[in-house]
C-alpha cells in the first residue's frame, strides 16, 4: 500500500537501509536522480551519484556527501531539512532541491533505515532570485548619478545570483566599446576580471558577438562556449589567454538598451558553478540590462544638463559689476529656486561706458528661470548696442521695447535706464519700481516717475528725468522681488525697505547690500526665494 502511495507522490522518495543501500525508490525519485530502474540506482554508490553534481547550500558553500540529511540520519543524527543548489556537471542544469530525511526505527529505537523526500524547489527559488535581483537592481540604480558606480553595482547584483562573472561595456562617442565594470564571484579571479576591464576601448570586428548584439539588439547565448568561440571574442593572444583562464562554460551577451538606441552590452558567464544558462536567464539579464541602461542614460543626461547649466549661467547671469572711476558699486543677485538646478532668473543689470560716460540698465523680465534669463541677455546686450546708436536713457528704453515686443511673446520687462554723472543722473523708467536716493543724513527720495513697461504697448514713449545728486548720496536700484518677498508677517514691503535704507546713509554700498541680504534672509526665515531678487547700490565718491 505504501508503495502505491509513494508511486503517485510528486516528490521523490527513497528508503535506505542502515548501510546506506537503497532498498526503495519511487518513480519520481528515479526520474529526479536520472535512473531508468531501481536496479540501476541500487548498483550506483551514493558517492558516485553525488559526484555527478556540484552541490552547494543556499549560501554557496559546498555540501559533501557526509552532510546529506539521509547520511546524517543513518548516523543517528536528526538533521534539519537541507536546501541544496545542484548543477549537473554533464548538462549544466541547475536545480534547487529540499532534502528531508526521517529515521525508520524498530521498537527498541534502533535505526532501521532512512526515508528521504526530495522536493524540487527550482521554480520557486528561480522566481525568488529573479525578484531579488530586480529588487536589488532597483535599489542600487536609484542611489547614484555616477554611472560608472551604477554599473559596478549592477555587476555586483548579477554575481553570484545570476552568473559567476559579469562585465559591462559602453559604446563611447567614437563608437569604441569600453569595459566600465567587471565583477567575478571568486575573489581570486577578480584580478583577472579587472585586467579585462583595464583593456583600452576597442573597435569590434562586425563578427564579434558583442558587435552583433550592438547591431541587432538581440541577445546572444552560448550555452556551452567553445574554444573557437573564445577565439572570436579575443582581441589578441593575451586577451585569449585571459579568457581561457576565466574558462567560461556558458556565456550570454545582452544589450543595454534605452528607447532610442543601444548604449552598450552586458556579458555574463559561468565557470566554477559549471551552470548552463537557459532562456529564462537571458530574459532576466535583459531586464537587468534595460534598467542599467536607463540609469546610465539618466546619469549622463544629468551630467550634460549640469554642463549646460554652467554654460548658460555664464551667459545669462549679470556680469560682475565693472570698476567705474569715481564710484563705489555693490550688487545682490538671488534668482528664485527652479526645478532645473540652473540658478538664473529674470532680474538683470548691466553697466557700460560710452564716449567717456557711464550708463546702466537695471530691470526685471516677467517669469522665472532660463526662459526669463534668456530675455535678460537680450536686454543687457540690447542696451549696450542701443547706447551706441543714441546715448540717451529714453532712447535706449525705446530700442529695448522694440526688441522685447519682437522677441518675447507675452513676456514683459520693467527697467530703469540711467546715465551717471557726478552731480546728476539722467534716468528713465519703464514701469520699474523707482530707485531710492539716500542722503547722508538718512533722507530718502524716489526717482524717477513711471513710464510704460517694455513690450506691452506699440505707441509708447519714455520720459527722462534729470535728477541732481550730491557726491556722497547713495542710490539703490531694486527689483519688485525685494519688496514682494513673502515672510511670516506678509510681504517685505516698500516701507521696510525704506526704513532700512534710511538707517544706511553713511554705509558703503557693499555694506548696504549685505545688510539688505541679511534682512531678507531673516524675513523669509531662510526659506527658498519664490521670486528673483536683485539690488545694485552705488555712490559717487566725494571728490
Amino acid at each position, binding site marked *: 500500500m505504501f508503495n502505491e502511495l509513494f508511486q503517485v507522490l510528486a516528490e521523490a522518495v527513497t528508503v535506505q537501509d542502515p548501510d546506506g543501500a537503497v532498498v526503495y525508490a519511487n518513480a519520481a525519485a528515479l526520474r529526479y536522480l536520472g535512473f531508468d530502474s531501481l536496479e540501476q540506482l541500487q548498483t550506483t554508490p551514493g558517492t558516485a551519484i553525488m559526484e555527478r553534481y556540484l552541490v552547494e547550500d543556499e549560501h554557496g558553500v559546498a555540501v559533501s556527501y557526509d552532510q546529506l540529511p539521509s547520511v546524517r540520519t543513518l548516523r543517528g543524527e536528526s538533521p534539519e531539512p537541507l536546501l541544496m543548489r545542484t548543477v549537473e556537471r554533464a548538462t549544466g542544469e541547475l536545480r534547487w532541491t529540499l532534502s528531508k530525511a526521517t529515521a525508520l526505527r524498530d521498537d527498541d529505537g534502533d535505526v532501521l533505515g532512512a526515508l528521504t523526500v526530495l522536493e524540487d524547489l527550482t521554480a520557486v527559488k528561480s522566481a525568488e532570485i529573479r525578484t531579488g535581483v530586480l529588487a536589488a537592481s532597483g535599489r542600487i540604480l536609484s542611489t547614484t548619478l555616477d554611472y560608472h558606480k551604477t554599473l559596478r553595482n549592477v555587476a555586483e547584483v548579477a554575481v553570484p545570483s545570476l552568473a559567476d562573472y559579469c562585465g559591462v561595456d559602453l559604446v563611447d562617442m567614437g563608437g569604441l566599446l569600453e569595459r566600465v565594470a567587471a565583477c567575478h564571484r571568486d575573489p581570486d579571479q577578480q584580478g583577472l576580471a579587472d585586467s579585462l576591464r583595464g583593456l583600452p576601448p576597442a573597435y569590434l570586428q562586425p563578427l564579434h558577438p558583442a558587435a552583433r548584439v550592438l547591431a541587432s539588439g538581440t541577445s546572444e547565448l552560448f550555452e556551452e562556449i567553445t574554444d573557437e568561440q573564445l577565439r572570436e571574442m579575443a582581441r589578441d593572444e593575451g586577451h585569449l589567454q585571459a579568457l581561457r583562464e576565466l574558462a567560461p562554460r556558458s556565456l550570454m551577451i545582452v544589450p543595454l538598451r534605452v528607447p532610442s538606441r543601444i548604449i552598450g552590452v552586458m556579458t555574463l558567464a559561468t565557470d566554477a558553478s559549471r551552470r548552463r544558462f537557459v532562456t529564462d536567464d537571458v530574459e532576466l539579464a535583459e531586464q537587468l540590462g534595460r534598467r542599467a541602461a536607463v540609469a546610465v542614460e539618466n546619469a549622463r543626461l544629468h551630467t550634460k544638463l549640469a554642463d549646460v547649466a554652467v554654460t548658460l549661467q555664464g551667459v545669462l547671469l549679470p556680469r560682475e559689476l565693472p570698476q567705474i572711476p569715481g564710484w563705489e558699486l555693490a550688487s545682490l543677485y538671488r534668482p528664485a529656486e527652479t526645478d532645473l538646478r540652473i540658478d538664473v532668473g529674470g532680474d538683470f543689470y548691466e553697466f557700460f561706458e560710452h564716449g567717456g560716460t557711464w550708463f546702466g540698465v537695471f530691470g*526685471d523680465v*516677467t*517669469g*522665472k528661470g532660463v526662459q526669463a534669463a534668456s530675455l535678460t541677455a537680450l536686454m543687457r546686450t540690447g542696451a549696450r548696442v542701443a547706447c551706441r546708436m543714441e546715448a540717451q536713457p529714453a532712447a535706449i528704453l525705446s530700442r529695448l521695447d522694440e526688441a522685447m515686443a519682437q522677441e518675447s511673446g*507675452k*513676456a*514683459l520687462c*520693467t527697467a530703469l535706464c540711467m546715465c551717471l554723472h557726478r552731480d546728476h543722473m539722467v534716468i528713465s523708467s*519703464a*514701469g*520699474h*519700481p523707482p530707485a531710492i536716493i539716500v542722503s547722508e543724513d538718512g533722507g530718502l527720495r524716489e526717482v524717477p516717475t*513711471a*513710464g*510704460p*513697461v517694455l513690450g*506691452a*504697448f506699440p505707441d*509708447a514713449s519714455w520720459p527722462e528725468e534729470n535728477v541732481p545728486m550730491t557726491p556722497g548720496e547713495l542710490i539703490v536700484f531694486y527689483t*519688485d522681488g525685494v519688496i*514682494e518677498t513673502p515672510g511670516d508677517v506678509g*510681504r517685505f514691503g516698500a516701507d521696510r525697505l525704506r526704513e532700512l535704507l534710511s538707517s544706511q546713509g553713511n554705509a558703503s554700498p557693499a555694506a548696504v547690500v549685505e545688510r539688505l541680504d541679511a534682512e531678507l534672509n531673516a524675513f523669509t526665515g531662510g526659506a527658498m526665494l*519664490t*521670486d528673483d531678487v536683485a539690488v545694485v547700490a552705488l555712490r559717487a565718491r566725494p571728490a
Partner: protein
Amino acid sequence: MLKLSGELDVASSATLEQSVAEAADYDRLVIDLSDLQFIDSTGLSVLVAAHQHELAAGRDFCVVQGPSQVQRLLALTGLEQRLTVADTLEQLLTSG
C-alpha cells in the same frame, strides 16, 4: 466678466490666461480686480496680453481697479493710462 480674488502671480496667472482664452460670445471683456489682494509682473503680463488680444479682435477690454498694491503697480507700469480702468463695476455698467 472675470472676477479675480486672492493673488495673481506666477503661480495663478496660467488659470486666468486659460479663462480669457475660453471666454467666447461677447463684445466686451471685463476683468474685475477689486477683490485682488496682490498682483505681480507676471499677472500684469496676462492683463497686457488680454488687452492686445481684445484690441486685435475689435472688442472692448476693461479692468475694474483693485486695492492699493494693484493700483500702484498699474500706475507704475503705465497700464493705468493705456487700459480702460474703471473705479467700480457700477461705473463701468452705467457708462455703457
